[in-house]
């Protein structure tokens, strides 16, 4: 087995909602008016090995993007620990060179690329600044990287708005690769693209992974993409991981009721018309999550116990953990 490149231990992040300085000052005196705290990521532990791709899947508001930002070191954690190659880090500000080792690709390339810089500068700037390449060789270096992501050499002199959506995402990937990262975090990197363009970008990411052995965390709401690209998958619900397993295992035999529901809701290309009633209910507000297991109000097999006790992640098979209190989870679901 490969060595561990990243580890998160009990990582949490809370946001205070409506916490303006005046409000906080007032709260100081009016003790009964507690500010509302949103626990975006709640005690998440996971690992990533060299060369591995880990998928994080969940619906909007489940905290997957907050998790990505914490892993990338853009966002400080409220509590918990992050380790890169065994070394704990909080934010990368202290050691800027290390910050380059974890790079991110965002959903909307137009808002993550500087519209007033040419692609050559966007891609090459950081590499030159951090002396990964001498300025005199920067142009060749950038052309090289652009070729790797399938962009012609003359794109170097063009601006982001002169590209199509798929090409822009290629620029975003080139920008991330230019500083020779060891780990890449893709936050909904293909969500805004057309199916045929999405296929091109997924193939590109797979090529990069094969050629450079880059470890990747791939965040998406699209189970089809996750299934295709990832070795292991973590399913998140309201800030917590509810199930984590190898991709094959998770799709073949999901055990957590929420994972089951997600897989059922996933649109598939098939000729069988869906005739059953989909599971009702919406994601509760993360501001006031249900007590106990967050999922219990929507869960078909929830018992009274579930509304009181927070389920911990338990191992149910090698490499397969889930957080469900119902021990007979699997058989109960089988009868559904």
């Amino acid at each position, binding site marked *: 087995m490969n060595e561990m490149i990243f580890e998160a231990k009990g990582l949490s992040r809370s946001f205070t909602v409506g916490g303006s300085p005046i409000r906080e000052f007032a709260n100081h005196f009016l003790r009964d008016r507690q500010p509302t705290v949103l626990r975006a990521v709640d005690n998440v532990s996971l690992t990533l090995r060299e060369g591995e791709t880990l998928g994080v899947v969940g*619906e*909007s508001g489940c905290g997957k993007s907050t998790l990505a930002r914490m892993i990338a070191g853009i966002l400080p954690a409220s509590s918990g620990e992050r380790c890169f190659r065994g070394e704990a880090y909080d934010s990368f500000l202290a050691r800027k060179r290390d910050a380059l080792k974890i790079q991110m690709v965002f959903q909307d390339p137009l808002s993550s690329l500087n519209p007033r810089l040419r692609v050559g500068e966007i891609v090459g700037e950081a590499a030159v600044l951090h002396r990964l390449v001498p300025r005199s060789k920067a142009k060749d270096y950038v052309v090289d990287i652009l070729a790797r992501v399938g962009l012609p050499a003359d794109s170097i002199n063009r601006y982001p708005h002169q590209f*199509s*959506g*798929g090409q822009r995402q290629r620029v975003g990937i080139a920008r991330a690769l230019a500083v020779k990262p060891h780990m890449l975090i893709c936050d909904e990197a293909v969500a805004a693209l*057309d*199916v*045929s*363009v*999405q*296929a*091109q970008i*997924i*193939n590109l990411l*797979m090529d990069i992974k094969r050629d450079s052995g880059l470890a990747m965390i791939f965040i998406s*709401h*699209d*189970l*089809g*993409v996750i*299934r*295709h*690209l990832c070795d292991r998958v973590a399913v998140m619900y309201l800030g917590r991981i509810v199930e984590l397993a190898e*991709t*094959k295992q998770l799709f073949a035999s999901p055990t957590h009721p929420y994972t089951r*529901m*997600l897989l*059922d*809701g*996933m*649109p*598939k*290309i*098939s*000729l069988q*018309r*869906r005739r059953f*009633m*989909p*599971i*009702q209910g*919406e*994601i509760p507000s993360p501001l006031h999550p249900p007590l106990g297991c967050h999922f219990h109000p929507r869960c078909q097999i929830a018992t009274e116990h579930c509304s009181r006790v927070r389920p911990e992640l338990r191992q149910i098979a090698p490499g397969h953990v889930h957080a469900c209190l119902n021990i007979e989870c699997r058989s109960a679901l089988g009868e559904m």
Partner: protein
Amino acid sequence: MTEPFFQVDGLNTWFFTRQGMVKSVRDISFDLTRGEVLGIVGESGSGKSVTGMSIMGQIDEPGRIVSGSITLNGEELTTLDFEEMRRYRGRRIAMIFQNPLMTLNPLMRVRDQMYEAIGAHEDGSRRKMHDRCIEALKAVGIPSPEERFNAYPHEMSGGMRQRVVIAIALLLGPDLIIADEPTTALDVTIQAQIIYQIRRQIDERGLGMIWITHDLSTLSELADRIMVMYAGAMMEIGTTQEIIGSARHPYTRKLLDSVPSRNTPGEKLKQIPGNMPSLLALGKGCPFASRCERATEICGEPVPATQLSGTHRIWCYHPFED
């Protein structure tokens, strides 16, 4: 088989821009029967949304419907003037868009927006309107409709908002609903719920629906028939069975093949090389020819329709065999 109540015949919608003529929709023809969902699938720039807007009579300068006819219950819509068309919009044809926050007025309660929609087309007491509104909200699966009725859009989740929009669309009992990517911005579990409810309403009320999307998997579960568009032109139209199960057009096949769930996990996806051609520089032939493996010289000529079955039509010189 019932008679179609809605027909589009030879529709051309072009935009006369400073860069040149953008032929966004070229020679589109289809029809719709009651209780039927027609899915229009295509990538961005394929002209699927412009088709929807053309039907609604919502094409603004510099664009216009150059030729073709659109008939609803036998009445021609393209020749109606603005005032006449306005009586149709909302009442006989309703439209649902991708982003409910842009459809709903953020300063008005759901109640007032629904009253306004009814009031624009008919008179009636508030009491009567109220019952109708609550019923419409119930029909799309909104829990505690009385409460939601008095809420503002920002107090609801994205899924709830989209349900409200659908409820408003259903309010006046239209014959046709055009939905442009209505569930694209929603989570999968919510999407499944809404699709279920929409299908039920269509079956119960016997209305026709045009569902515009880029997502073939949603269509395979919802639509009765599917029309595939590329660069403003029709590529293939047929029943869902014919399109998903036995697509004959190279573009449809490629589109289906590039969906991750139809590929072996971990293997490279079958991608379509290249990009969509610019709509400014289209030749008279098949627009997909430059990316098509099967293309030959003849593909540069105008492509006639080939009728494969009573429902299956295709525009291609080199279709796949069954």
